């Protein structure tokens, strides 16, 4: 082993990197931040009181132009920044048993501090469920509503094996402290895909979560208007909220880093190999 291996790595990595970059470039991504724009001008000084005041209507709309042709399916994400879904206390505050088997199961002590309300267990319990994201979006193009498919946005195994088909929300968001969204108590947890997506906690404090899919192509210069309910409080901790529309390639979303890394490593390997070969030729060692 030696220089040839390095050269070999280089010759493999560069083309792979280029292919990857191509895939990444084929992805069209639109990111719109809306957390500030959606607070009416008078409330901008104290956004927290705005968001906590139920009497103020929270609807808001934003519009954007599609920069490039976007082929269906177009994935809709909401992105939260500076939101520590990976805080240990938060991550642990759930009960997988309860999610699957419902009320008759014990072992919801892990759900602290959101386990019971009025001496009755909460389903689903725990901080994660309690802080469910509840902004909603509707998309309009050319005055016509774009249908958003909100099915199959969670892992199939989660839906089938981790969230019970016979478990219904119970006693949820009934306490004095209301966190995030409410759940329809008539729909079983296995069909509450928003919850399921939310419950797969993110790894990093800045994350996207799948909201739904638009199954129609968007043309260049299409103007899309989004009507949204700006319910979720990120204002108290200075978090950002963004709406993301993105197509995907075989690679997933837009991901220049990987391709660049491949190309960079490939080309530096080749350089190193060439430099060493030259040095080797210049100073022959026996």
């Amino acid at each position, binding site marked *: 082993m030696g220089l040839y291996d390095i050269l070999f790595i280089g010759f493999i990595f560069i083309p792979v990197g280029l292919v990857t970059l191509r895939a990444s470039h084929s992805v069209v991504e639109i990111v719109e931040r809306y957390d500030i724009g959606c607070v009416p001008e008078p409330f901008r000084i104290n956004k927290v009181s705005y968001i906590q005041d139920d009497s103020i209507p929270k609807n808001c709309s934003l519009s954007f132009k599609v920069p490039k042709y976007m082929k269906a399916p177009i994935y809709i994400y909401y992105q939260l920044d500076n939101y520590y879904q990976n805080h240990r206390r938060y991550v642990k505050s759930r009960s997988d048993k309860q999610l699957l088997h419902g009320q008759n199961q014990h072992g919801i002590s892990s759900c602290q501090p959101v386990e019971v309300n009025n001496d009755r267990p909460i389903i689903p319990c725990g901080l994660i469920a309690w802080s469910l994201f509840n902004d909603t979006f509707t998309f309009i193009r050319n005055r016509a509503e774009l249908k958003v498919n909100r099915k199959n946005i969670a892992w199939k195994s989660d839906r089938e*094996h981790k969230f019970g088909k016979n478990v219904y929300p119970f006693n949820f968001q009934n306490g004095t402290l209301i966190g995030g969204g409410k759940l329809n108590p008539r729909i079983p947890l296995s069909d509450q895909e928003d919850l399921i997506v939310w419950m797969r906690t993110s*790894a*990093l*404090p800045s*994350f*996207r979560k799948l909201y739904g899919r638009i199954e129609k192509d968007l043309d260049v210069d299409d103007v899309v208007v989004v009507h949204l309910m700006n319910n979720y409080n990120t204002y108290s901790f*200075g978090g950002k909220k963004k709406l993301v529309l993105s197509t995907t390639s075989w*690679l997933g*979303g837009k991901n220049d880093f990987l391709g660049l890394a491949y190309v960079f*490593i490939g080309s530096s390997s080749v350089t190193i190999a060439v430099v060493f070969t030259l040095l080797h030729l210049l100073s022959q060692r026996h």
Partner: protein
Amino acid sequence: MVAASSRKRKGKIRWSKLYSFAACFRPLTSKERLAARELIGQPGFSRVVFCNEPHLHKRKPYKYPYNYISTTKYNVLTFLPRALFEQFRRVANFYFLLAAIFSLFSLAPFSRASLIAPLVFVVGISMLKEAVEDWHRFLQDLDVNNRTVKTHISNGVFVDKLWKELRVGDVVKVNKGEYFPSDLLLLSSGNEDGVCYVETMNLDGETNLKIKRCLEASLCLNEDEEFSKFKATVHCEDPNPNLYTFVGNIEFEKESYPLSPSQLLLRDSKLRNTDYIYGVVIFSGHDTKAVRNSTRSPSKRSRIERKMDHIIYILFSMLVLVSLVSSFGSLLYLRQDMVDWWYLQLPDDNKVNDPSKPVQSAGLQFIRALILYGYLIPISLYVSIEVVKVLQTMLINKDIELYDDVTCKSVQARTSNLNEELGQVEMILSDKTGTLTCNQMEFRKCSIAGVSYGGDITEVDLAASMRMNADFEPFEFSIDETDGATRSFEPFEFSVSSFSAQNGNARLTKTEGPVIKGFNFRDDRLTNENWIHGSNLFDITMFFRVMALCHTGIPLEDDNHKMDKLSYEAESPEEVSFLIASQEFGFQFCRRTQSLMVLREFDPSSMKEVEREYKLLNLLEFSSSRKRMSVIVSNEDGQIFLLCKGADSIIFDRLADNGRAYEQATTMHLSSYAEDGLRTLAFAYRTIEAAEYESWNTIFTQAKATIGPEREELLEQASETIEKDLILLGVVAVEDKLQKGVPECIDKLAQAGLKIWLLTGDKRETAINIGFACSLLRQDMKQFHLSLSRDAESNNQVKDMKEDILQQIESSYKMVCEERNKEAPFGLVIDGKALEIALRGDVKDEFLQLAVNCASVICCRVSPKQKALITRLVKQYTGKTTLAIGDGANDVGMIQEADIGVGISGMEGMQAVMASDFSLPQFRFLERLLIVHGHWCYQRISKMVLYFVYKNVAFGLTLFYYELYTSFSGEVLYDDWYMTMFNVMLTSLPVIALGVLEQDVSSDICLQFPALYQQGPRNVHFSWSRIIGWILNGVVSSLVIFLANIYILSPTAMRENGFVADIDSLGATTYTCIIWTVNCQIALITSHFTWIQHLSIWGSILLWYIFLLVYGALPPNFSGNAFQVLVEGIGPAPLYWMITVLVVVVSLLPYFIHIVIQRSYFPMDDHIIQEMEQCYKKYDVRDNEMWVREQRNSQRSTRIGFSARVDAKILSFNQQLQQKKLSIYRSVTNSPIYRSITTSPFS
């Protein structure tokens, strides 16, 4: 048993009469008698033994232990607490114990099982190993305890009894060749005068036999029946470790007799030359002096392991540092931001996240972080190392090359702790007798009347001429083409070298004929009675007579043997070899009575064998100060002869003027014998007139009768007056037979750069001889002899002696410093008494400084304690790794003191082996043990430890980096079970395979390139720069792995279906990268692949996927968020696989580039050899010129050893050749023909 199998009869002689000087028979002076009597009954001297009444010792107050001996560390009850204590004394284990205890509280970041399980596993395996080792000790004890001895039960009946059942007061009968089961009081022996011979080699390593003698009063007890009514009471000292003292008295038949050490037979010594003895058990079991004197073998740790502790400390400080950062970070978050994070509903109940008390929370976070980053500390390192070492020892033990088919024993690694230490040895301290030599003397050469017999071509000459031949061929070939004029010298050179080679070969291969033990002499001029044709017939016969008469031996009539050949028994093996030799020459010593010696001589005049009787008039015994021995005999004609043998210098001083005829020739022979390491003795005689004898004899008898301290002096003076005016006959050379392969082994070890010191209890002459025989010394070496001058010694003033020694040391050191030629070798010979002074506080440093600068050091007449002391001082002073090798109990101290103790197991004694860390059947196996196994193990363990550090840093730091992104809340990126699997399953097997099977080069090449061994002493594989380098490598890998993963996987979708990576996907992906990286890294380190390595490395990676699959398939109750993570989450994403490839390549690239640079520009020895091996694999490598050259280069230029001697010889040959060449050249150029050619008109 011995006596039973071969019945030997022996003329009953009062041995005591033969010895005029025997000091041990000196009766106690009245003063001492009084002192002894006063001591008895005092504290420390209160023991009472009722002989032949062992039942009295079953109850108090005379209850003494059984003769049961236990050397085990634990027993059934103490095992658990003690072994556990030992385990948790290790810092790392204690840390994990604390972590496990913390895991019982909610504070811990991991589940309980994942913290406790590995600890139990690790500690369990270590304890299991302890238990197995102790079990082996127990079995060994069992073996000793179950030996049997004939014990008196009642009415004079003796039955076999187990050693362990023996009690104080028992009367036992020990037969010839048996060990004493406990400390015995000698009652009587098979010899009439109650004398017995004891071999104490196991106690003090001295090979000469000790004489013990019973009290006159108990002489009568020499039959089994006598003991039916025997009763006596012994009052004596309490058990103590002092081997040379014994105070007590015995009340027997209403009389009290004082006892002295000469009546005490010590356990572990052996009965020799005496058919049987009767004795009574005085001290049993753990009370015996030998057991009391032995020290528990200290637990030794290798250098690497000690350095490993420092690495653990570094990792601990890393751990504390990152924990501090974490806790400080969490403090900041708690103070500033976290209050606003409504989704956490703070404050926490368990106070870890309490914004109102941030400092307290930070403190708790610190503890949590300590546990969380525990993966920086390689928990399985110790246990893996232990497993690896056990496997390594199995490989060593099973090495067929280390099997001795003579003794059917193999090398045994008795402790597995020191395998890698074998690769770092710089200094070998070796015992002589039984280690280098077989303790067997062989008659090799003699010089009679100025003629040397027995061949004169030595192996050194042979090797030198062979090497020169090899060197000349290419050299001359090149000259051949360039200059035709040199062609004429070619035949001459060839003839010289090939002549000596052929000559040597012819002489050396001529070794047909029956092999006689102790006689290795081939010269047709003397054997087969051919000596009768010699010129100086009288001198030759006298020479043989001295050989046959001047000794203390006795013939053994052995029924199994042919009647015409006798075997002999004598005080020293040299004498035996003389007797055998004289028998071969036709002077058979066949009988000895009290005053008569009978020889069966070959009479040259009648050509027949005749029996001649010689009256033994006096025997002047050998002592180390006299260095000679004489007998005065009268032959059948009444002529009185004094026959003398002794050290050459002593004899030459006492020659008569007319006795120096052969002095010059003999001296020459002497020096050549000595160069070969043969032990020489000069023979001389004189005839004494009857009148002269008579007058002398009266003086001598008077001196003999004197009682008191002046007796010895008088005797010496008396002998001085008769041992003079001698006539020199010649010298004999006996070989203290070296064990097989010893010189070659020493040579190889010297080439590998090891220093060898010889420590022996033997005489200076013998030690020097062996020094020559092993090529530790040679003639052109400057020797320093340190010994006390007579004046200083007689004064007995410590101060004077110190000054004397100091002066000698200083002058020698000055010579060393002044020597211009750096390659000039020095040899240091020092004796025990001088050593005692030299090792004292203030002289010590000077002495060691000198000693370290000498190529070889020989210490003679050193006591076991001194051996241990030297070892300790050398270890401390030089700081180098020392290895002590020995075979007897006298070496135990040294073996225990040295970094590595090696015992020779070929002999009977077990003490050295029991105390040793490795036992070899023979010395020569040391070569392979060190150069091959030591080198390998050193490499293996260092690579292994470094890799362990690397993989744990690479893994542990990713946990820390993740904390930076989770507001230091203590969340873990990976599932608990992934982490538990990391050290136990997923990365453990490859590293164990590396530790057991790695070879940088094959064993053949290790032996061919001994310089490779120097990597160990120089510690190139485990230097701090390497350690830091590997830690850095780990840091880089962890950074690459973590950063690449979070930047690639976040925040965009990772799959075509738009799913984004959650915490579990990211965790599993990152973890996959870690597993790949660390396993590929070990594949890069490994240079010797077998299917086991492949299986373990690639199997580990595969195992990870299998684990992920299986774990993910378990119901979500169990697998939690890892449920279906591979199948549903990351497996279908091409991104996942591409990250893996990228990360593995990038994180290995730094190491890869490093080795490419190193191999191309700064190659180490092993790299070059590996490359050469690969390049020339297709051809026969050994023929390659480059191979040979590198091989030559890799042998360190040494100053000791066979090769060095050959080199020196070649140098001198070359000088001679050069001179001859020059003279021939001159004669040719001066010749008229040459002149006419050179001035011829044609040119």
